């Protein structure tokens, strides 16, 4: 006998978290994108470890071979070679961790600043809020990429500096969002109750209010990763990124642009890598946003 278990309906008993998870699981594009993010992370970590252990696989990303320079993709060099005869495929895999590290860590920096600033502005309100938000408005007037370029050029390009600068420049969106959430949460009954019980500001902010603003913060965090990846690629392209010989997706294109009419593979593949990585994060972030949004767009 065939028994079919009916799909569980969105029961009122399910917690918001369970409902969000269920909605996310129903989103095919989001799941694919999340899978892609996972794959990228595994590749990045794996090839970082291989690099540290000194295992050259598929080839040593830094080994030059002038007899085999600027060769199109073939059976030996799957994605061709660059002007020094280095294997583009190995360099792409080796550069993955730079992009992802910059993406994740810069977002952590920007979240840390953005959440703190937004929480303080939203919780205290009045002139504190006014002063902080005018400052945030002013920063938002600056062309972000130019600001990053200026700062990185002055501090000197290194992966650490790039992460710090991108983080320092890109927290304003998070701050605005957290502030808006906090202005609403501040008036809720449980916060009033906590205050009536005599709990102190920091404890109310971090124990009670922050967890309730976690969902939108998570969404902005995921959407912030590709922004940082693209900013790093742009910096690398202009020569202010992580310095050679370390391969990054941006500087493979920057080095390859001299040979643009002869060696299209030096431009095409690293660009595709950047596109795929950024797109996976954007689609994951968008799927998350749809899943946690209280009123679904489709209704």
């Amino acid at each position: 006998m065939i028994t079919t278990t009916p799909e569980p309906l969105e029961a009122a008993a399910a917690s918001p978290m369970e409902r969000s998870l269920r909605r996310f699981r129903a989103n095919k594009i989001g799941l694919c994108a999340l899978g892609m993010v996972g794959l990228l992370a595994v590749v990045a970590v794996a090839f970082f470890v291989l690099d540290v252990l000194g295992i050259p696989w598929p080839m040593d990303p830094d080994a030059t071979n002038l007899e085999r320079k600027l060769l199109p993709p073939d059976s030996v060099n799957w994605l061709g070679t660059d002007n020094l005869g280095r294997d583009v495929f190995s360099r792409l895999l080796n550069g993955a961790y730079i992009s992802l590290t910059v993406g994740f860590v810069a977002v952590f920096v920007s979240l840390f600043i953005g959440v703190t600033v937004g929480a303080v502005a939203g919780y205290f309100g009045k002139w504190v809020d006014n002063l902080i938000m005018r400052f945030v408005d002013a920063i938002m007037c600056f062309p972000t990429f130019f600001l990053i370029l200026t700062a990185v050029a002055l501090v000197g390009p290194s992966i650490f500096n790039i992460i710090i600068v991108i983080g320092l420049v890109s927290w304003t969106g998070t701050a605005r969002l957290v502030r808006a959430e906090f202005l609403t949460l501040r008036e809720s009954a449980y916060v009033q109750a906590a205050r009536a019980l005599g709990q102190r500001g920091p404890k109310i902010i971090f124990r009670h209010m922050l967890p309730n603003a976690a969902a939108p913060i998570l969404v902005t965090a995921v959407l912030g990763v590709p922004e940082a990846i693209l900013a790093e690629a742009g910096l690398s392209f202009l020569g202010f990124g992580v310095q050679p010989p370390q391969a990054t997706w941006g500087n493979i294109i920057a080095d390859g642009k001299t040979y643009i009419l002869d060696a299209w593979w030096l431009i095409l593949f690293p660009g595709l890598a950047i596109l795929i990585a950024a797109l996976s994060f954007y689609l994951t972030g968008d799927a998350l946003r749809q899943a946690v949004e209280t009123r679904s767009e489709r209704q």
Partner: protein
Amino acid sequence: MTVFIIRRLLASVVLLFFISLISFFIITLTPGSPYPWGELNPKVSEDVKRIFREKFHLDKPLHEQYGFIMRDLFSGELRSIKDERPVLAKIAERLPATLALNLGALALSLSFGLLLGVYGARHAGRPPDVITSVLAFVFIALPGFWVSYLLAIGLVNYGAVPILGTHTIGVTFANGLEVFLDRWWHVMLPASILAIGGVAVQSRFIRASMIETLREDYIRTARAKGLDENAVFYRHALRNSVRPLITGIGMLLPALIGGAVIIENIFAYPGMGRLGYEAVLERDYPTLVALNFVTAALVLLGNLLADVLYAVVDPRVRLE
């Protein structure tokens, strides 16, 4: 209305003050030397260093330096370290090209964003919407410099679209119209590439705003009285969902001007972004302070215009 504009102007003055602080402190608080030569360069004598420090007020405390820089900036006395020309003059000669590029890209972002967003909302939840949504994210995720090179390869080999500079060199045109058209022809490619991300962002906002409007009661009323779906959609809903077109002006400008740094470099386009890149390479501090200040002030102006425009087109916005 007047009161509203005056209040906005006053608020802008406060913002401008913060903007000046930020552009000053990015330069002074970042570690690294403000000298065009290395800090420890033995070939530079102490006298040269002292003269340089005095000339650019680097021997004064920070708050006085800030005062000097702002005074010089507003009186037009701030000079580039590289060629000693007034910074404002250098910026002014780049301004027309920058405005053409960025306003062109802004216009493209807003118009194509509107089309894509409306199309998505019209088919909300169905395959055409899913496809345009994914396409929008592809657009946002495209690195501009990569697209530029791919297009440049294609256009050099198979097309006749100019990929360098602002005008055809060595050709005299019969009249002003032809000069104008030639310039627009040159702006087109960089502006289109610059606009790619903006189109996508804009289409997402238009789509969301449209879907929101379609849930309103008056839309249900319009349907209930038997209007056909196109009339409901384009005549009733669309008008109330174009708010992102105006807010987009303020939101897109910083991204466009920032993105222009890379695009102008690739297409040898002499705008402010390229000036900025050159200043970064030469560690030309006064130019960097002034550029950051002027671009942020331009964005502020764009925001202000957007706010006023918003109030003009939407009578529901109270101006007090």
